[in-house]
């Protein structure tokens, strides 16, 4: 018995001594070159949501151009996607290509499972700068933006007209005034709806920080309690204090009918709301405004999804060929026509399909001035902390300065996971 115990202890000690983190081999890296010629062999691809269901349309076209290649798309539901990718990496059973949410890139890149983007194959200059940044971790590009989305102000047209708001507000003061007018003269119960904290509220509020010339992370440390950030939080708070926005969170499916009925005059959201509003018969009843400026630029939030190739890919070269095929301007336009995803490649916006659409043009212009949160592995956790503080601001239980301090100290203690 004693001997067995000793053996167990010895094994445990061995296992423990094998532990311990290696220090990071830092510095920016460049991807290896990809062999020329047509793609061949099997390419396995994981994609989420609608993209996963419809990607085979593009895959078929790709296979027509590359008869020796066979693309196999596996649709993955968004709910389980993060877990599935984690298990695939842990079990080293990854596909060749996967779609990634922009805020996941930092985490998965840090595991060392993602292949570095080959610069000769996928060119940074083709993309919106804000979008490209989402795929870059510590100066190294690990994924390529596939489609993008950014946030605009959706406004009820008749309420705005009644209130005499004829042109989009250019500055913060004008936006506040517009919201006031739409409430007082336009007859709306709420002049604007800003998500009062809770999951994802940072996507509404961080643009205010950027518009005010502030930022979340400056490469060395977090800057969430900078004067610019505090000013942005105070601006956010002012909407609740003035009774312009409700302090209660609206559930999914509640905002659209309320905007169309004029109960809320405006809200901030992404391109998917065009479809949702039109489905409710709202076509022509609303308009889109770009973001206003604080003391900085009219910056908005950029989101979307990226494509990454795994280091463990069995067919790496063909995988990158498929990814670069999806980034061709005409393929991006076709993709927009298939699933209404906005192209991440700037040249695609010159196509008549997109350039000819007035509503889309607002998105296109906004994309030039759109930023993403830092691609660090701990971002989701930091964002959750920010959301909690934003809720306190919205509910009126905390001052903007205190919230900024709390955000900063939480973010600093969580760190960047390096």
């Amino acid at each position: 018995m004693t001997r067995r115990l000793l053996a167990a202890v010895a094994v445990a000690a061995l296992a423990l001594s094998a532990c311990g983190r290696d220090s990071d081999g830092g510095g920016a890296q460049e991807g290896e070159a990809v062999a020329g010629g047509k793609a061949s062999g099997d390419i396995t691809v994981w994609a989420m949501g609608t993209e996963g269901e419809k990607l085979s349309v593009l895959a078929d076209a790709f296979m027509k151009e590359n008869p020796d290649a066979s693309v196999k798309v596996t649709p993955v539901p968004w709910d389980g996607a993060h877990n599935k990718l984690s298990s695939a990496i842990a079990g080293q059973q990854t596909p060749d290509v996967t779609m990634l949410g922009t805020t996941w890139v930092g985490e998965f890149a840090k595991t060392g499972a993602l292949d570095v983007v080959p610069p000769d194959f996928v060119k940074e200059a083709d993309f919106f700068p804000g979008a490209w940044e989402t795929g870059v971790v510590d100066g190294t590009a690990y994924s390529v933006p596939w489609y993008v989305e950014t946030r605009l102000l959706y406004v009820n047209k008749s309420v705005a007209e009644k209130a005499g708001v004829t042109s989009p507000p250019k500055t913060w003061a004008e936006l506040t005034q517009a919201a006031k007018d739409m409430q007082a003269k336009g007859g709306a119960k709420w002049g604007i709806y800003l998500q009062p904290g809770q999951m994802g509220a940072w996507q509404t509020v961080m643009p205010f920080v950027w518009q005010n010339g502030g930022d979340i992370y400056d490469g060395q440390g977090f800057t969430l309690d900078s004067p610019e950030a505090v000013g942005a939080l105070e601006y956010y708070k002012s909407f609740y204090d003035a009774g312009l926005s409700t302090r209660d969170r609206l559930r999914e499916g509640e905002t659209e009918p309320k905007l169309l009925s004029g109960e809320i005059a405006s809200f901030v959201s992404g391109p998917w709301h065009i479809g949702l509003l039109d489905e409710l018969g709202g076509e022509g009843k609303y308009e889109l405004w770009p973001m206003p400026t604080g003391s900085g630029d009219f910056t908005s939030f950029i989101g979307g999804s990226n494509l990454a190739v795994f280091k463990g890919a069995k067919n790496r070269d063909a995988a990158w060929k498929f990814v670069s095929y999806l980034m061709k301007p005409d393929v991006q336009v076709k993709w927009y026509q298939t699933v209404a995803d906005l192209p991440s490649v700037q040249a695609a916006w010159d196509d008549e399909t997109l350039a000819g659409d007035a509503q889309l043009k607002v998105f296109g212009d906004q994309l030039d001035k759109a930023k993403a949160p830092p691609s660090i592995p701990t971002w989701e956790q930091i964002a959750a902390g920010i959301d909690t503080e934003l809720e306190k601001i919205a509910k009126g239980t905390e001052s903007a300065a205190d919230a900024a301090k709390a955000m900063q100290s939480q973010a600093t203690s969580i760190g960047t996971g390096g």
Partner: protein
Amino acid sequence: MPRRPDAADTSAPGSPPDAAPNRVPADPSEASGPTPATPSGEVSGAASGEAPGSAADSAAGSASDVRSSRAPGPGTAADSGVVAGPAVGVRSGRAANSPRGGLSRALTGWGFALPFTLLFLVFTAGPVVMSLLMSLTDLRGTDLLNPFNVNIVGIDNYVRLFSDAKFLTAAGNTAVFVVVGVPLTMALSLVVALGLNSGLVRFQTVFRVGYYLPVVTSIVAISVVWRFVLQPDTGLLNEILRFVGIDGPNWLNNQTFALPTLIVMGAWRNLGFGMVIFLAGLQAIPKDLYEAATIDGARRFAQFRYLTVPMLRPTMLFVAVITTIGYVQFFEEPFVMTQGGPLDSTLSLAFHTYNQFGFGNYGYASAMGYVLFVVVVLLSIVWFRLLRSNVE
């Protein structure tokens, strides 16, 4: 297993009927034994020998020993023979010492236990031990490729937990949910069970199904309906309140009311389970006890207090333990209804743990899981102490 000693006896002609009751467990394998002649011989020996009720394990040893000396080898045929004669009590002392018999016996035992043991080790015990080890490290989502490249931090994660404001909030919310929710759920289900047990005979099944329905309904469907009911402006609940002149709050967005709302919802959802168990417990109480109590002049309430409640103690213990275990891990209600808000007023321990796993803090989240586990064990012990049967 069917209790049919007669049928078994026909396959073992040598055994006298009086030995049959003790041999019942062995019947099926005896009947299917590959060499019927051998067991029957042994059984007759057993009948002529002593102690029909001798310890089964030593008996099994002796049987295999005897058989292996006769059969070509202690193969599978012999193994099934072992089971065939558990009641054989012949000179068990000598046989049990035989190394061969012991080994064969152990092999047989493990052979039967193997499928479960393997599954248990790989899919239950393994992960449990792994997560305990994980809770002692700083394993994160970024370590997936090299899980051994982590630092051992000892009980650091556990220490950190108790300075984590969110964890403490979550612990407080969970405590309130359990302390208020468990008694509420138990009381409601007991009341419903008593009602169903006494009066309603005709529609009992309808009511039973009705109350049990929430237990088997998907929480997602329930949440949609409840959200409609709880809508501040147009919800059913506030409409009714307005009817009597009360301006109802925004239930799920109000810090004061969100948690109580979820408690009520939880009680409503789990009431059916307690009810079914209580109903079974109530129907197991002999009717003549009530008759005797009535003759002694006990009123309804006295009967309930001094007869029903004591008789229901074991049932109560069961419902209390199961409900407590469920409520300590309370997760689904905040997950689908409030996402832990407003201002973390409905954040539960399990939900917080889930979030931490989502953030990739595997080590830290495992530590939380273990704290939750210890709490469940402690609370179960408390219930056992409180409701220990003291009928005797």
